[in-house]
């Protein structure tokens, strides 16, 4: 499907892919995943890296980061497009296409004047692709990090347009992906689907008059106040449960509401065995969680009893994961290189944070995009391992993903869909599939 000038490189771990991306952009992204001290040493060497990047022969490289919104350097989509056109024109290169035509071509005409922060995930992706399409006129090549993770299938033609623009560039296009990231069929494995121990748990989700304000934390201009409201519902579900839906449909917003990490009015509960309690959330960006509080501190803050020590649960998850990976014929990625808990890889961090949450015996455990930063097999084995350990303690598991991999893993599915209302934000509906 993609043109011949495009090379796809697959990596087993998040760290390897990030290193490859950093290498391509002259280390312009500090290593947040490596801890604060490495981050700082990378950051202070930026001026030299910046000079090298800009002074590289053949013009700088165009790129899209693993989270496309982060590579947009301007406040609105229109500015991003105009800035790219200005850069191309200043290099004596004609883009050969007009501003409005580009907006229509990439389907961003409706949102082009919106601030970047208000764009949905799908819109940010389109803006990033439009930007790199224009920069194709004056760049020596293009590097894209994990496009199969953030690009919905119906938008693949946009990636095609962009890649095609670099057909005659010096370095061509390099796509850096995690193993299995581009596979779009459900995961099938006897060991996972027929395992008796992998039993299900019944629980319910109940929402009653839930309304969430969408203004920012310093939203002092409230003349256009917007809300997201959820339709009242109560669904009886089986764990593991999948929340699915396209980009920007409100899946993560629902997770924030259920775990009460966002302010809202109304009632939202996960009910298990007739009791309601707070549910815990594993965010998509676990690196920020790891930086925010050291793993040691997370462990020390949740030590209820010796039976439920996070270290013990961590080891159980690791054991399950190792067993599942070997049954799938997969080699073990970078884990367990340190004895017990400590600073480690992204996968270790996920194990650790999941263990800390299971320890607090929540009414539900929600994992937002468990596939973020993991290869296909690792992500699936991670979810199965966590669900087994959580189920042993009677905790239901909810995962949020738009990947089609989970069909044989989950026991119930909820579709989240957004309906935009004129002048009043939007309604979000939950439908049991």
């Amino acid at each position, binding site marked *: 499907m993609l043109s011949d000038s495009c090379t796809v490189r697959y990596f087993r771990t998040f760290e390897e892919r990030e290193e490859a991306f950093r290498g391509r952009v002259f280390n312009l992204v500090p290593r947040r995943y490596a801890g604060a001290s490495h981050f700082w040493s990378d950051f202070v060497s930026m001026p030299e890296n*910046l000079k090298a990047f800009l002074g590289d022969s053949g013009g700088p490289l165009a790129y899209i980061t693993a989270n496309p919104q982060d590579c947009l350097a301007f406040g609105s989509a229109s500015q991003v497009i105009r800035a790219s056109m200005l850069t191309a024109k200043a290099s004596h290169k004609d883009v050969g296409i007009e501003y409005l035509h580009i907006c229509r071509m990439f389907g961003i005409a409706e949102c082009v004047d919106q601030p970047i922060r208000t764009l949905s995930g799908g819109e940010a992706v389109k803006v990033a692709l439009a930007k790199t399409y224009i920069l194709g006129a004056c760049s020596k090549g293009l590097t894209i990090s994990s496009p199969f993770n953030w690009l919905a299938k119906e938008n693949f033609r946009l990636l095609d347009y962009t890649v095609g623009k670099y057909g005659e560039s010096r370095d061509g296009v390099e796509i850096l992906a995690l193993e299995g990231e581009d596979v779009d069929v459900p995961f099938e494995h006897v060991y996972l689907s027929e395992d008796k121990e992998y039993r299900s748990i019944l629980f319910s989700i109940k929402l009653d008059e839930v309304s969430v304000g969408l203004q920012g934390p310093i939203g002092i201009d409230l003349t256009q106040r917007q809300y997201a409201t959820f339709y009242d519902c109560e669904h009886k579900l089986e764990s593991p449960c999948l929340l699915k839906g396209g980009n920007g449909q409100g899946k993560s917003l629902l997770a924030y509401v259920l775990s009460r990490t966002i302010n809202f009015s109304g009632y939202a509960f996960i009910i298990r065995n007739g009791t309601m309690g707070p549910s815990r959330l594993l965010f998509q960006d676990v690196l920020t969680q790891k930086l925010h509080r050291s793993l040691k501190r997370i462990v020390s803050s949740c030590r209820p009893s010796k039976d439920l020590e996070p270290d013990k649960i961590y080891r159980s998850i690791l054991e399950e994961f190792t067993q599942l990976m070997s049954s799938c014929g997969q080699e073990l990625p970078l884990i367990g290189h340190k004895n017990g808990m400590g600073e480690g890889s992204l996968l270790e961090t996920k194990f650790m944070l999941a263990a800390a949450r299971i320890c607090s015996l929540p009414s539900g455990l929600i994992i937002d995009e468990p596939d973020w930063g993991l290869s296909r097999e690792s992500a699936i084995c991670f979810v199965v391992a966590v669900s087994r350990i959580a189920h042993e303690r009677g905790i239901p598991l909810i995962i949020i993903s738009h990947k089609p991999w989970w069909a044989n893993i989950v026991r119930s599915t909820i579709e989240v869909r957004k309906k935009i209302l004129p002048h009043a934000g939007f309604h979000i509906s939950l439908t049991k599939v």
Partner: protein
Amino acid sequence: MHETNLIRGWDKTRHWKLKFIILLLICLPGFTDYFVRKFSGPIMPGLTHWDIIYFFLVFVTVLIVSGRTILIFSISAVALISVSVVFTGGLIAFLRILKGFSVEKIYEYSPHYVSLLVRLFSVVPIAIAVVATIPVREYECVLLKRMTGVSTFERIILMVSRVLSHVIYTVLPTIVQIMKEERYARKAYPVKEMLEDSVMKSTKFRRRVSRVIAEILTIGVSFICCSLEYIPLWAQEISRLPSRKEFKENANGTPY
């Protein structure tokens, strides 16, 4: 129409220069201290007639010019500041006197804190209103519309606004969300239980203080890392924009 203006303030983008000048004029007495002290006598130690008049003048002006939303936001901000600055300061001063560390009397300290409180209630709302009047977002939007290169000042504005918007709308909410999520771990297993279980022999107070300090430090580190992460990428894109002069030389200044 009149009612709408009172609730929302004037349209943010219209007449912003006029609003800015009006608010700036109202600011002058508060910040220069000229009229406030010169033309009025005290009602009580630390409080003059003009203080009261100025206080009402500020509130009415902010309500009419900037609207109810800004006024409410200002009151919240001033309440937070006064609790931390005035009341904590007053408490420390009182404790110093009580313990005999200060030779002055309580009645000598009090006027200072009364004056400070009234001043905060006038100065902070007007300062917030002045800042909120400037249509930064609208200015930022027109920066690249001309498509004829950017000046150094415009480059700085672009960079600063991108970083600020990232910090305010992405980094801060994320950190707040993580802190909210982690509070359940603490609720489930209170500090008391952890202390009893602790092998460390330090006192409860020291443990608590060191824990609070460590948490503030890690939050600070996390905040800095998240804020700085993409600055080099954005900086290289902004630095690639041609200057006005360069653009004229290279592309004969023909806009798109």
